[in-house]
């Protein structure tokens, strides 16, 4: 089968278009992606002393706030990177916490400069 000139031209255009599509893909950077938290999202726990969030790569800075059922902050002291693990954010909580829903909000800057944030909840329930 002889390729007509039109077909050849169109094929060439196809190659160019596909190449452009590949080049246009932005290059990957090392954003820190959330991996896990303690307490976990939607977990029901009978006690909680601190909240930690772990990511898959190093953070430059970060902060965590936790609000209790009344809507007020229940954290104790400053939040920030775990001194033993730059991939983790940590904050201690006050004692004598009320039962109910707690909302964790975290924001951070990854080593590559990318900023992101997230939010989730867990529930403090009565010990059985």
């Amino acid at each position: 089968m002889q390729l007509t000139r039109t077909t050849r031209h169109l094929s060439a255009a196809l190659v160019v278009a596909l190449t452009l599509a590949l080049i246009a893909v932005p290059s990957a950077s090392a954003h820190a992606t959330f991996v896990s938290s303690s307490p976990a999202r939607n977990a029901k726990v009978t006690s909680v002393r601190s909240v930690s969030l772990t990511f898959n790569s190093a953070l430059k800075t970060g902060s965590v706030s936790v609000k209790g059922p009344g809507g007020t902050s229940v954290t104790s002291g400053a939040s920030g990177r775990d001194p033993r693990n730059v991939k983790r954010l940590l904050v201690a909580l006050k004692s004598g916490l009320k039962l109910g829903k707690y909302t964790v909000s975290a924001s951070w800057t990854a080593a590559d400069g990318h900023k992101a944030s997230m939010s989730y909840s867990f529930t403090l329930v009565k010990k059985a």
Partner: protein
Amino acid sequence: MRLRSRTLTSLTTLLAAAALVVPGAAAAHIQVTPTRVAPNDPVEFQLLVPNERDNATTQVRMQVPPGVLAFSFADVPGWKRTTKPAADGSIGEVMWTGSLAPESFARFSFLASTPDSPGTLSWKALQTYADGTIVKWIGAKGTDEPAAVTTVSADAPHQNAGGEDDEDDAGTPGKADTGGGSTTNTDTSATAAASEDGSDDGAEADWVARGLGIASLALAALVLVLVIRTGRRGGRS
């Protein structure tokens, strides 16, 4: 004529003698560039490793200075890389294994975030040769085997090798959707990238790249359809 040739010979002999007398000049040191960086900046560093001996370099181990957060490494063909963590869980040491011939140099690039405050970074490194020699680049400036040094200075230019927006974004804790306890990792979806923050050069560049990519793919699809149709019509031989 004779005089000139004799002068030339003398000169050549003198130079040759001088070359023998001058002590092992400029055996090239391990270097790290840039030598001057801004604080709190993602930088692309390059570790330059020259082979100064008559047998191959087989391993390079580099200590990441405290406060430096290395997060991405160039893939160097022919070299395998492993890392060891520091006490704070960051990458503390990088080890490259491969083979570097005499009269050659290898270049290992990596991205790292510089410390928050000005100071001096000392890039201690160990260079192992095939004959078992280990050259320790750990000395002070001016010694035979000094560690490469980078100065962190507040007035050094920003490199922003991460390509992210420099502006201080008041990362909005609590703003994200909390309805069902969802995670809003704001960089993982197209709409999130656009709404992440107002003035965001990074997001704009992302959109240009995505737009170009989408347009190219659409064009490619169109051309593909036309090729098939033309082929069918004109192809019966």
